[in-house]
């Protein structure tokens, strides 16, 4: 059994590096000349991507066998699977439209997601009674596939924006685009900070009141924001610069805030360095590489991804979710934050489709909506799990 789970995590590592290699090949397509004639780099890129996908599928299956339940039951497993579905959705849309450069953006984002996932506890966890149902994998896999496809819409939207936004002068568009890039950098920073301090086995223990009782809180990264009314008990550990506000609930609220601040600062540092090297806006630096790309095609890919993903998402995240909720908790809808955010995602893409079909929102506006939709999906994945439910007593 132990061997199987080792094999499983090795396969995930392998998949990660295979995706990384595929990214470089998609990068190589920038230099491809002519339209669709010589597509050597692209073909190699997609082949390697598919190999990577199959490797990750291997991870998924072996982990399933090892744990004897579908490995989508905690944040690590779910987010990893989400990354895999993003790759899968990219492969589908690649074969419909064959846009090589899409891979140059889709794969790094999937890599980010998978790396992000690995920052959470990766042990195999047992299923609590409410999760013991076939609907676990029916619901979660479908919802995740839907989100994956919708995320490709974001990738295409981002490509479109970098290609189309006028970089000759500063505007709302350029600023927001830089912000989106900054958020991606902040995610990289989160992964770096967590891994580096993890490798150093950094630990700082605090004693602080949680819900009226003294508890011990262990920080994995140096404390910028310490727990409210907390006291450092590890020797030599850095004291916090300030204390987290007391209204933040839950045992780990301050710890999460601390990690969040690290990510924000780290992202700022990375972004600053990149700007310093490029001496222009990051998007402006990428723009020339995309000149060959047909913006209408990218716009259509973005829209098509929503058209394909919306029904899948609705089926998985709303309908299957309701059927399962009816069985497990006797109500198909309970206005739980996770449910509400799935509904918000549904509403958002419904609005997107209405605006696009009936009100003619194409191009930039449509691309910004795709970015917003991805923001909502990520919010539901990260903030609702880590922050909103953290406000609740049951976190």
């Amino acid at each position, binding site marked *: *059994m*132990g061997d199987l789970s080792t094999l499983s995590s090795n396969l995930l590592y392998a998949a990660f590096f295979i995706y990384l290699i595929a990214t470089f090949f998609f990068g190589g397509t920038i230099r491809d000349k002519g339209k669709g004639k010589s597509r050597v780099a692209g073909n190699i890129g997609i082949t390697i991507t598919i190999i990577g996908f199959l490797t990750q599928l291997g991870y998924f299956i072996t982990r399933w066998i*090892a*744990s*004897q339940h579908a490995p989508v039951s905690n944040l690590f497993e779910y987010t990893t699977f989400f990354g895999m579905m993003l790759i899968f959705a990219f492969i589908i849309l690649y074969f419909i*439209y064959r846009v090589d450069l899409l891979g140059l953006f889709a794969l790094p984002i999937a890599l980010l997601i998978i790396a992000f996932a690995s920052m959470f506890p990766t*042990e*195999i*966890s*047992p299923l*609590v*009674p*409410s999760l*013991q*149902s076939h*609907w676990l994998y029916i619901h979660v896999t479908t919802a995740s596939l839907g989100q994956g496809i919708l995320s490709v819409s974001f990738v295409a939207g981002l490509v479109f924006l970098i290609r189309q936004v006028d970089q000759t002068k500063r505007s709302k568009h350029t600023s927001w685009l830089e912000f989106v890039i900054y958020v991606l950098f902040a995610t990289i920073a989160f992964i770096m900070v967590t891994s580096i301090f993890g490798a150093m086995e950094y630990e700082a223990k605090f004693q602080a009141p949680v819900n009226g009782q003294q508890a011990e809180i262990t920080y994995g990264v140096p404390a910028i924001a310490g727990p409210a009314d907390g006291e450092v008990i590890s020797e030599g550990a850095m004291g916090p610069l300030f204390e987290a506000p007391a*209204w933040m*609930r839950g045992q780990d609220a301050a710890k999460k805030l601390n990690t969040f601040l690290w990510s924000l600062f780290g992202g700022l540092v990375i972004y600053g360095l990149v700007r310093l090297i490029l001496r222009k806006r990051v998007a402006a630096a990428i723009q020339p590489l995309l000149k060959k790309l047909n*913006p*209408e*095609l990218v716009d*259509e890919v973005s*829209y*098509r991804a929503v*058209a*394909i993903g*919306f*029904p899948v998402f*609705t089926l998985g995240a709303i*309908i299957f979710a*309701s059927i399962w909720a009816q*069985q*497990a908790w*006797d109500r*198909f809808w*309970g*206005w*739980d*934050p996770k449910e*509400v*955010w799935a*509904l*918000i995602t549904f*509403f*958002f893409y419904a*609005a997107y489709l*209405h*605006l696009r*079909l*009936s*009100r*003619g929102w*194409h*191009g*930039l*506006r449509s691309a910004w909506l795709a970015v917003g939709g991805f923001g909502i999906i990520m919010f539901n994945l990260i903030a609702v799990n880590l922050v*909103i439910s953290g*406000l*609740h007593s*049951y976190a």
Partner: protein
Amino acid sequence: MNEITCECGHINPEGTVLCESCGKPIEKNQHIDGNDQKELLNMRYDGSARRSQTYNRTIIDKIWNFFSSVKVGVWLIVLTLIASAVGTILPQEMYIPPNVDAATHYRDQYGLLGQIYYQLGFHNLFSSWWYMLLLAMIGISIVIASIDRFFPLYKTLKKQKPKRHELFMKKQRVFGTTESDQVDVERFKKNLKKNRFKVYEENGHILAEKNRFARWGPYVNHIGLIIFLIGSLLRFVPFFYVDEFVWIREGETAMIPGTDGQYYMKNEEFILETYDESDERFKEAIQKQGGPIPKTYQTDAVIYERTDEFIPGKEPELKEVKTASAKMNHPIKFDDYALYQASYQLNEFKEMTFKIHDKENEDSNYGEFTVDLTNPKSEYELESGHRVVIDSYFPEYEMKDGEPVSVSKYPKNPAFVFHVYPPGETSPETSFLGIGMNIDATGENDYKLGLVNFDVRDVTGLTVKKDFTLPIIGLGGAIFMIGVIQGMYWNHRRIWLQPKENGVWIAGHTNKNWFALRREIDKVIDGTHIQKPVDQYEMKD
């Protein structure tokens, strides 16, 4: 004058943008869809006379037209979306602890933000009248917008003729002209059919069309949504929907609420299983959790049906219906009802066993007696001749104003005042016993009572549901999915071919996915000497 006669002779209803038959733009109505001379035709709803745009006289018409607008619909969606998001900032009232006062809870837990949140009613957002009103308005908007669009569009697509007006052809997004006398129309038609187009012909004018049904997708999914909303509405009718909750202690039989006294249930046993900590697979996770992780919540139950007439309070005559277990994800189903494992309380005191011993000697024993806490006897005779009388019993004991009282009927903290009559004596010794408490009232007792054993039992909490709206809601969901897939996974495509003196004109239209349409046109003109049409659309943003 309400109707518009086109130069092709077709009579169009008022408000038509493009002639239903030949597609010629109707001059004075172009403003309606933002068409103007230079630009491509706006093909939305195929230029049919959307009713909302045409009649706007009475107040009824004005209300109707308000809801008919997609812009209004999108605004309603956006407002609902924002409201929903606000509703998740703090937990809803249903998720806060049940025994606290909401007003103080929000203020104490979340400070000023919590207080404002509570004052504005966001703590009960999803059952607030205005949130429901928003959803209802979306519903109304769906109905009216669909009626206003479906029928005109249906008629227009039914009446369309292969022969189109030149202006219509030229102003299509995909358009091309071919000057050649070698155009192979037969091959073109064959290619079209091979690509599953339906081909209509009129004096050499060709209309090829596929997947028209995809245009009905939005209306089908809207019907699904309406059925869904109506299903949800029926939940307010008690006949359709029962939602009750019941606590039942192990060994007890209780009426199942919401069944009009028809059904009873006995709780045979409540089972809570946890994962084995030595399980190789989960060892790490369980360690990290720092406590046992539950594996099963289960109630073994017997369901009874009442055979005599139901009068509340009257002892029932029961007939067993079934023996079953309620687990999470596996409710007990009987008749139209379902029982869901929803909650539990562990270890409520059930029995306590005491012994009498000498005050000075713990090891002496004058006999034991067991008190059933749900039905204590008033007197216990021991073989040694001692007699114990329960003078007072406090199921949930507390001291109030120096007096022992019980604050509930549940044996959560049982305490007793015992009178012990030694053999032959008529005046008792008084002892006061509770959990962790053993008081000799006078200090002159010779005997002492001691707790030797106790027995506990669990309480299970079950939700009782009867829901006749589920099939309706399910049907709505299914129809919605069919409609969405129909509209999203197929595209309505049309290709027109017009014979000219020397050559042909070709035009194409689709409701989405233009690249796919152009690829398809490339396929059907293959070998026909028809020139590849161009995409006249340029991205402006």
